[in-house]
């Protein structure tokens, strides 16, 4: 059965490759065009720095507010959706339904819709981010709640605590680290998202980049890309550090790594502080490194939120009378009209699916060697691992639609630049996932093979690959799912696929055609998710 799915994937890749007129020559020619454009972009022109810096910060604050609002909405939704906390089965289905629906529509589509009602500016962007993020945050929050142990809850119920007390004292402490990590991860994603919402007039740096490219001011465009790149990379580094300390690392990763001198000193310092607190009969916990990190992270997050609300030009209350119109616009998508633009719809959807398959296949092809080079337990030379990881981190710093804008500017309109841009983004993202999966393999089967005299290649093939394969297949399906969503919006910047019709129907106010496009995207994504869940079940 698994082989059938594998053959299906290869077949879909080949069909897509030839339908899109992709060839090795066009691939390298495209890269040559991009290199020429990049040459014209250097050196970056920061003369308009105040606009660029303001737009960069607006991008950050939009993501911060959007993620915060979404996380806030998701707390009650997740408690309603989790099987162990929901008050009733009906509530559970309603909450799960809201979570699934919000995930199906890309934020740039929400943004394009909201711009129509709220006019241009960061507010439609923030709302779009907040609504779309509910899908991922709500699902992962609910999963975190469901994964909590039942025994502490029962124990606290047994002392006579009320339901709310039991939830706060037993479920919240267990689920909180995972929930914060989810919100932080989503913030990373949302910064990338908010940096492209400007392409449809929803605030942030996307507009500055597109405007510069349209006026052929490539050096100014590069300055804006550089700013957003620094922001994304910095947030990703900080977020990864905080998430790791909140969730701890996989035990196999720890087994593969030596404890550094710094970590040993930290443990010694915490032990001393603990002992002093016990000796002094302190009634408050000592300031261990974990408590310091937790408190300072909370303070920084709180400050960022306050600054975001103060600085973003966001007439939350001023737009109050127009909020009902938002619902009306969403209502105008129904009933979806599949007939008016049927040919464009079929052609656009097919092209989006083809782009997703080619980008996933090509990305995979590039990711496997890069993933191996980035795994600390596979490649012994630290310098190779480090340079691979740093390169991947840097390449991930530019959002996919921005990459697509650059590729389209270099190569012209059409699906080929869109596909190449998505391939590049896929390769960098998937390589990191693969490297992480390889690092998480259990070291004991490898040791057993080394003990019987196996070579490094034999050990890798016999002990590492079988352990990592289920994870890699599962991630490939996830990447295909992500790429399908991405390929549906590439058309907004001229990168091929259904996005062009989507934006066009919005501009000419043909909302029912927009509804048909959104529904088609939802159905295709849902189908791929369904296939993914079957394959994952087969892998277990």
């Amino acid at each position, binding site marked *: 059965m698994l082989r059938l799915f594998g053959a299906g994937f290869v077949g879909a890749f080949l069909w897509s490759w030839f339908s899109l007129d992709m060839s090795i020559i066009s691939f390298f020619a495209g890269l040559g065009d991009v290199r020429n454009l990049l040459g014209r972009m250097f050196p970056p022109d920061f003369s308009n720095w105040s606009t660029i810096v303001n737009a960069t910060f607006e991008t950050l604050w939009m993501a911060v507010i959007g993620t915060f609002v979404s996380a806030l909405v998701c707390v009650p939704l997740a408690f309603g959706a989790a099987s162990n906390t929901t008050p009733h089965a009906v509530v559970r289905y309603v909450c799960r339904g809201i979570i699934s629906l919000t995930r199906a529509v890309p934020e740039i589509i929400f943004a394009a819709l909201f711009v129509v009602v709220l006019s241009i500016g960061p507010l439609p962007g923030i709302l779009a981010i907040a609504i779309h993020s509910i899908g991922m945050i709500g699902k992962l929050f609910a999963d975190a709640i469901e994964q909590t142990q039942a*025994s502490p809850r029962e124990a*606290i119920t047994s002392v*006579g*605590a009320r339901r*709310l007390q*039991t939830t706060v004292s037993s479920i919240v402490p*267990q689920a909180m680290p995972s929930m914060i990590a989810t919100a932080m991860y989503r913030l990373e994603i949302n910064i990338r998202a908010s940096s492209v919402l400007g392409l449809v007039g929803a605030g942030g740096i996307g507009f500055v980049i597109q405007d510069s490219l349209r006026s052929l001011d490539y050096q100014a465009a590069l300055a804006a890309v550089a700013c957003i790149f620094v922001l994304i990379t910095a947030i990703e580094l900080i977020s990864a550090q905080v998430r790791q300390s909140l969730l701890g690392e996989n035990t196999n990763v720890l087994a593969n790594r030596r404890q550094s001198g710094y970590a040993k000193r930290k443990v010694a310092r915490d032990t001393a502080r603990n002992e002093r607190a*016990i000796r002094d009969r302190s*009634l*408050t916990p000592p300031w261990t490194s974990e408590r310091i990190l937790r408190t300072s992270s909370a303070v920084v997050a709180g400050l960022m939120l306050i600054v975001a609300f103060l600085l973003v030009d966001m007439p939350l209350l001023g737009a109050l009378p127009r909020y009902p119109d938002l619902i009306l616009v969403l209502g105008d998508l129904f009933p979806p009209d599949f007939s008016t633009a049927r040919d464009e719809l079929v052609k656009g959807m097919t092209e989006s699916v083809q782009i997703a398959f080619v980008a996933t296949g090509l990305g995979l092809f590039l990711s496997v060697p890069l993933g191996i080079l980035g795994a600390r337990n596979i490649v012994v030379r630290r310098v190779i691992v480090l340079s691979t990881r740093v390169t991947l981190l840097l390449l991930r710093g530019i959002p996919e639609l921005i990459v697509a804008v650059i590729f389209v500017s270099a190569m012209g309109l059409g699906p080929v630049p869109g596909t190449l841009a998505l391939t590049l983004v896929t390769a960098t993202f998937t390589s990191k996932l693969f490297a992480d999966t390889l690092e998480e393999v259990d070291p004991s089967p490898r040791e057993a093979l080394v003990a019987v005299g196996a070579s490094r290649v034999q050990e890798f093939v016999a002990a590492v690959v079988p352990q990592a394969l289920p994870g890699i297949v599962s991630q490939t399906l996830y990447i295909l799912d992500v790429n399908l969503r991405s390929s549906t919006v590439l058309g907004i910047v001229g990168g091929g696929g259904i996005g062009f019709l989507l934006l066009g129907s919005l501009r000419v106010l043909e909302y029912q055609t927009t509804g048909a496009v959104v529904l088609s995207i939802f159905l295709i994504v849902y189908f791929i998710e369904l296939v993914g869940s079957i394959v994952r079940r087969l892998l277990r």
Partner: protein
Amino acid sequence: MTFDVPNGQVLALIGLSGSGKSTLLRILNGLHAPTGGNVRVLGVDVGSARGTELRELRRNIGFVFQQFGLVGRSTCLENVLNGALGRLRGPRMGVRSYPSELRRDALAHLDRVGLGTVAFQRADTLSGGQMQRVAIARSLMQHPSILLADEPVASLDPESSTQVLELIGKIAREDGRTVVCTLHQVELAMGWADRIVGLESGRVVLDAATSGLTIEKVMSVYRRASLQAEPLPLLSV
């Protein structure tokens, strides 16, 4: 089944898995509802108790679970403080959300179970025996009249098992608390409890003071059950 437990008695419930020991304890605390009959604990009909009445009853009954029921990421002190939730209004998060006299009380209970030195350590960093002692401290935080213990040593090594049972026995005798504890280790039960009640398929098949009991008599509870069980088919090679 019918039996009474007088104040201050240490009673061990024995019987094969599935004989109804854990169900009985959970019914006594109102965690499970009885399907029939009449269960009165501290003068309250547990079957009909709801809401505030049930919570008030639970406040007076300490419960020690086989799997400890500790919040792994919380400190030991906070886990012990959770035992006071039944007496407090509103939710609490973090040690500092509890009044200082309760924190002092919790620290004293941790000292009593010999774990004052790990008050600020995360519960999931402790050994099984230590975790169970923290769970006992949590139930002491309730100042309960009755202490129920469901297989409190089933997940522990022999040395920790003895320590935990000795601790429960010591608390019962020093504070005059009633203890009802399910156990599988007959010899441990004989040396520790005042009285043993044997269950089989939800019925009492043995009820006697440990002073007049022989180990053979107690073991007969297990033999009776295995004799009644379907014989296993012989393996043929």
